[in-house]
């Protein structure tokens, strides 16, 4: 079996965010959704000293910096929307699988915006992954 070059990075994401799923549940047992989001951002800042860039971030193009900030802003806005959905009567068993379908946007936009092509086995893998997300979140 040939492991793709991104395999181990994905494994780290799965383990880290898999534990996050548990911590989200535990944190909201003690805190409001708004407070949990604030402490999440505090946690982001805690690891920032370890990631302090060697060169000035201003050396990067303003376009790439805008993508980076927009990416973070949308992540936080999406997290708030997820919590707001639950606050407005959405059941976790429905809201979580529904929102876990966010890769769909990338699947449809990547060929258009990033000019990427997906092989047939990869397309089948994406479909299986999305079905797995829905089933595991139920």
């Amino acid at each position, binding site marked *: 079996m*040939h492991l*793709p*070059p*991104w*395999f181990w*990075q*994905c494994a*780290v*994401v*799965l383990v*880290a965010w898999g*534990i996050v*799923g*548990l*911590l989200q549940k535990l944190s909201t047992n*003690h805190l409001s959704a708004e407070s*949990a*989001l*604030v*402490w999440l*951002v505090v*946690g*982001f*800042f805690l*690891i920032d000293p370890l*990631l302090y*860039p060697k060169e000035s*971030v201003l050396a990067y193009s303003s376009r*790439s910096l805008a*993508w*980076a*900030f927009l*990416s*973070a802003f*949308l*992540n*936080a806005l*999406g997290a708030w*929307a*997820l919590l707001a*959905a*639950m606050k407005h009567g*959405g059941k976790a068993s429905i809201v979580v699988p529904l929102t876990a379908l*966010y*890769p769909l*946007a*990338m*699947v449809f936009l*990547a060929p258009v*915006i*990033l000019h990427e092509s*997906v092989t047939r086995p*990869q397309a089948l*893998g*994406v479909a*299986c*992954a999305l079905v797995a997300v829905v*089933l*595991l*979140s139920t």
Partner: protein
Amino acid sequence: MSLPAALKAKWFWYSILCIVCWGGWTLFGKLGSAEISAPTMQFLFPFGCIPIALAMLWARRFKLEKSPRGIFYGVANGVLSGIGGLALFAAYRTQGNAAVITAATAMYPLITVVLAVTILRERLTWIHVVGLGFAGVAFVLFSI
């Protein structure tokens, strides 16, 4: 709940907003990481979250609960989310297919389910078992 009823519910549209936002998060994350290194992308990440965090603080009139356990879980949540985000940006920089990487990493409930069973002693339903099977098939297909 029927589909027409769901379409009138606020939670449904908040969920759609979440999908759109997180779709944008992964897309712009991929675009940004084409030039910016993974550690720097993650270094910049919390700064982009500040406007939303300030809005949450304002919504709570700048008063947060003082549960030490809740704060610990919340901060740990941020640290691990950050480590996961760093690895995601690193995966995007391998020139791998963004759609495939995004779908593969979105299977994180796989680990949550396993942890919930082993730590929280929650029971695994047959739906979860089928989901684990689909996740395994997806991993095999990604490695072809």
